[in-house]
């Protein structure tokens, strides 16, 4: 009896190598004669470049070359934006190395190529750049004022959209309750632990680029488009990649420039970023001002929702910069039914690092706003926040349900997840303790925060992406090959960087082909091996890529069936497949899939029209997004004397559909929750009025450590997705999306008796204390 692999908490195949230091981080790699690249970066947020003089650097020991933007001007092209969200969007030219003008602190203005990194660093100091300062544009509202300095010739507005569904005016007309709030989604620095690195080499004709990227396939296409080097002469390899969280879903200046340097010099070059360089120049996340209005009846039923966003694009539009706020366009209404919805968004240019995807990308922002506002509605009506949600959410029996924003949620069970979470949390008991502390006037108040979130995952179907004017498809590809000895090689177009695809895909294949888990290997992240792929982001890998693996296995099995029928002289329909073997129904006669792999290899006796291989390719493109959901509950203790917030307990019940590997799913949720808590309590990228980033190091940008975070209590409900045969929904972003509002709701809940109904994130002790001081006066 074989155990089904899907659902088992398999320990990861990836671990042993990573645990013993046999790693292939890009910065570990070397080539004979490798040269090191370093970039000189603008210290000014906005300036004209009057001159760049690299001649002194060129003469320094160990220096092989030094270049300014002018030296690349003819060949460097413009970094791509693949998501023009409106017809009239302004997409400014974005040279990988600045030539005439710099628009954010950290933009590359020159580079040095030297025999080692110390020599390169020395030579950077010898480069002279003459800047003519221009005014910085830091604040979005000021940027939109008619007298603002301009980031680009065309002005500071990148795009503006409004989407309406239902009669929004009617929804607000005579509404007994209107909640009107403005929330700030602070700018965040994704902070994958592995800083970026790029290596490029050439044999004079073709090029290989190794990069710490989430998107080797997309990068290859884009490098070809940007540089004009033919695509078939570029190979991109993503070796071990140390986290991404969206920050490595990018086509970066450094990737383009390293490729061009390899071409200019005919030598291998490598660049590895320092953390402070990375804080300045890895794209940032979030950064929205959200104006939210909600109309409701006096019994708590939501009538309508109006959302107006200002989204900070930073200085340029990078790969999917303008698409990020638009990923929230259909998510503010979340799990709630309502009569009308309006979403408006204006993308604004500022002289700051561009923003782009960061874990959740558009959906955490939307979820935060709606979940905060639902709590405000509950408070306004004197109702329990759970009850307000219950009155408005889509009931289990109503699925599939088409929401006011036009998405069709295939499945969900908000009741079940919420019931489970409430029980685990001990909701009633905590409410009683809260009441008691309030009565006693305890200086340490208890707050309870709720977040009943959903999100859209998968970033597919391609058809819907096309409708949203996204520049690529959303399919994924897989190949499955039976090797002559019966082992299996799986090639996936996804590009894992911590998610454990090698393990999960092995489990899927083990079930589909009946081969042992240990007999399966998974290859990825090299465009010469995984020739087709759409890579890893948007919680899409399992939902799209894992399903492509299933589809490829299905084809392999059908090929094997034909071969088995031929060898056992029966009809394919007379064969049963179980535990990796085809048996002629009603007989003892059988062939294992391993035997069939060998038979296909020797090809001594193949049926007519069957090729000498037992392998197959498949792509998968679903017909809908997937919609994980869950209920997160957070209890915080707020010290009203110091402003200190302590998370006392955190319960998360997630429904991510079918679970392939519970260990990996839990890990994703834990890490996700931590990142969401980090936004709520700790992290913020701060620019001063001159456009200088003040949080350039890990000493200034507060990533939480183990000492700053609690344990989480996790559980699941499993409502399989109907949009794919595995029933999976995606889990990479769920925790991050859910947790930020749960924490802030809890803090506000603790402080509500003081007349406080918002604290701006991150809710630092200082901010909490100041809010309390404000009302004490």
């Amino acid at each position, binding site marked *: 009896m074989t155990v089904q692999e899907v659902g088992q908490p398999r320990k990861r195949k990836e671990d042993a190598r990573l645990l013993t230091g046999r790693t292939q981080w890009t910065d570990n790699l070397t080539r004979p004669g490798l040269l090191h690249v370093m970039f000189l970066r603008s210290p000014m947020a906005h300036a004209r470049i009057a001159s760049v003089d690299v001649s002194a650097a060129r003469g320094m020991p160990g220096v092989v070359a030094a270049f300014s933007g002018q030296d690349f001007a003819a060949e460097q092209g413009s970094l791509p934006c693949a998501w023009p969200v409106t017809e009239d969007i302004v997409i400014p030219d974005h040279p990988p190395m600045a030539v005439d003008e710099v628009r954010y602190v950290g933009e590359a203005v020159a580079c040095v190529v030297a025999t080692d990194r110390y020599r390169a660093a020395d030579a950077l100091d010898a480069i002279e750049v003459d800047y003519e300062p221009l005014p910085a544009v830091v604040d979005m509202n000021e940027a939109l004022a008619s007298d603002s300095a301009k980031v680009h010739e065309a002005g500071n507005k990148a795009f503006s959209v409004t989407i309406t569904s239902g009669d929004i005016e009617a929804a607000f007309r005579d509404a007994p309750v209107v909640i009107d709030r403005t929330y700030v989604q602070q700018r965040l620095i994704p902070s994958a632990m592995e800083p970026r690195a790029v290596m490029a080499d050439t044999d004079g004709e073709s090029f290989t680029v190794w990069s710490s990227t989430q998107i080797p396939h997309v990068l290859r296409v884009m490098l070809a488009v940007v540089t004009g080097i033919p695509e078939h002469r570029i190979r991109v390899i993503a070796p071990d990649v140390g986290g991404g969280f969206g920050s490595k879903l990018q086509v970066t200046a450094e990737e383009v420039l390293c490729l061009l340097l390899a071409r200019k010099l005919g030598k291998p070059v490598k660049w590895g970023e320092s953390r402070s360089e990375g804080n300045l120049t890895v794209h940032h996340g979030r950064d929205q001002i959200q104006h939210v209005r909600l109309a409701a009846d006096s019994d708590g039923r939501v009538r309508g929702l109006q959302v107006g966003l200002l989204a900070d694009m930073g200085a340029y539009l990078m790969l999917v910069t303008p698409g990020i706020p638009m990923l929230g366009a259909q998510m503010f209404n979340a799990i709630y039914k309502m009569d009308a919805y309006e979403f408006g968004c204006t993308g604004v240019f500022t002289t700051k690092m561009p923003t782009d995807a960061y874990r959740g990308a558009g959906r955490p922002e939307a979820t935060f706003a709606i979940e905060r506002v639902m709590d405000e509605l509950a408070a306004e009506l004197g109702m329990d926040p759970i009850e307000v949600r219950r009155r408005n959410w889509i009931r289990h029996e109503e699925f599939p349900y088409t929401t006011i924003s036009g998405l069709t949620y295939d499945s969900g069970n908000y009741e079940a997840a919420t019931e489970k979470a409430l029980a685990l949390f001990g909701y009633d008991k905590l409410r009683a303790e809260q009441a008691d502390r309030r009565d006693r006037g305890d200086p340490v108040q208890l707050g309870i925060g709720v977040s009943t979130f959903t999100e859209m995952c998968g970033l597919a179907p391609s058809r819907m992406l096309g409708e949203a004017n996204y520049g690529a498809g959303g399919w994924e590809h897989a190949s499955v090959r039976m090797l002559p000895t019966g082992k299996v090689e799986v090639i996936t177009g996804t590009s894992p960087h911590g998610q454990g695809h090698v393990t999960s895909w092995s489990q899927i294949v083990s079930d589909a082909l009946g081969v042992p888990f240990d007999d399966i290997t998974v290859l990825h992240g090299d465009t010469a091996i995984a020739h087709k792929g759409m890579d890893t982001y948007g919680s899409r890998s399992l939902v799209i890529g894992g399903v492509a693996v299933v589809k490829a296995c299905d084809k392999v099995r059908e090929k094997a069936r034909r071969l088995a029928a031929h060898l056992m002289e029966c009809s394919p329909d007379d064969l049963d497949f179980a535990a990796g073997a085809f048996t002629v129904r009603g007989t003892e006669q059988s062939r294992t899939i391993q035997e069939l792999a060998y038979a296909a290899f020797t090809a001594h006796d193949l049926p007519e029209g069957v090729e000498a291989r037992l392998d197959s390719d498949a792509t998968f493109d679903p017909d809908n997004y997937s919609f994980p959901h869950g209920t997160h509950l957070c209890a915080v203790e707020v010290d009203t004397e110091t402003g200190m917030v302590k998370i006392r307990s955190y319960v998360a019940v997630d429904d991510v559909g079918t679970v392939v590997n519970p260990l990996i799913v839990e890990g994703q949720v834990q890490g996700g929750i931590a990142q969401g808590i980090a936004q709520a309590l700790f992290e913020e990228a701060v620019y001063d009025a001159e456009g200088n980033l003040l949080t350039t190091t890990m000493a200034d940008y507060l990533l939480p*450590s183990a000492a700053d975070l609690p344990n989480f209590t996790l559980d699941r409900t499993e409502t399989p997705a109907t949009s794919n045969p595995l029933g999976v929904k995606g889990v990479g972003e769920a925790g991050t999306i859910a947790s930020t509002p749960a924490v802030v709701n809890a803090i506000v809940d603790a402080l509500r008796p003081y007349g406080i109904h918002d604290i701006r994130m991150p809710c630092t002790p200082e901010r909490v204390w100041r809010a309390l001081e404000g009302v004490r006066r």
Partner: protein
Amino acid sequence: MPRITVTVDGVTYEEDVEPRVLLVHLLRERLGKTGTPVGCDTSNCGACTVLLDGKSVKSCSVLAVQADGCDVVTIEGLGTSGSMHPMQQAFHEEHALQCGYCTPGMVMAAIDLLRENPDPSEETIRQGLEGNLCRCTGYCNIVRAVRRGAQEMGQAVTRS
């Protein structure tokens, strides 16, 4: 250029190094010990943690010349060929790593933590690993792994 003698993972090296070269760069770029990664430039992340004469240090904040005459153990020198150190094994069992970038430093720091406190509470582990950042795991499983590693190591000691 000063000449130093340093033992790394059981092998003794004699190297001429510029005084400004960091230990982590000596390890990675000269000795090929790329198992120890670099995650920051302000000694905050702990990714580069190694044992220097048995105590954990952030090898990005030690100069190579300061390691003259010392014994360095990196993640590559733990365990024996064919079997992992109990702490490495515990990280595997508890799914305490995702991308694995923080892992070498985390494991080295955990081993050093147990040197001072062989049976640490969850709270002690959380405080003790404060100087090692992980962006992937949310730390829950790392804390569990260190507890498990402590138990395994405790047993290993009593057995021998």
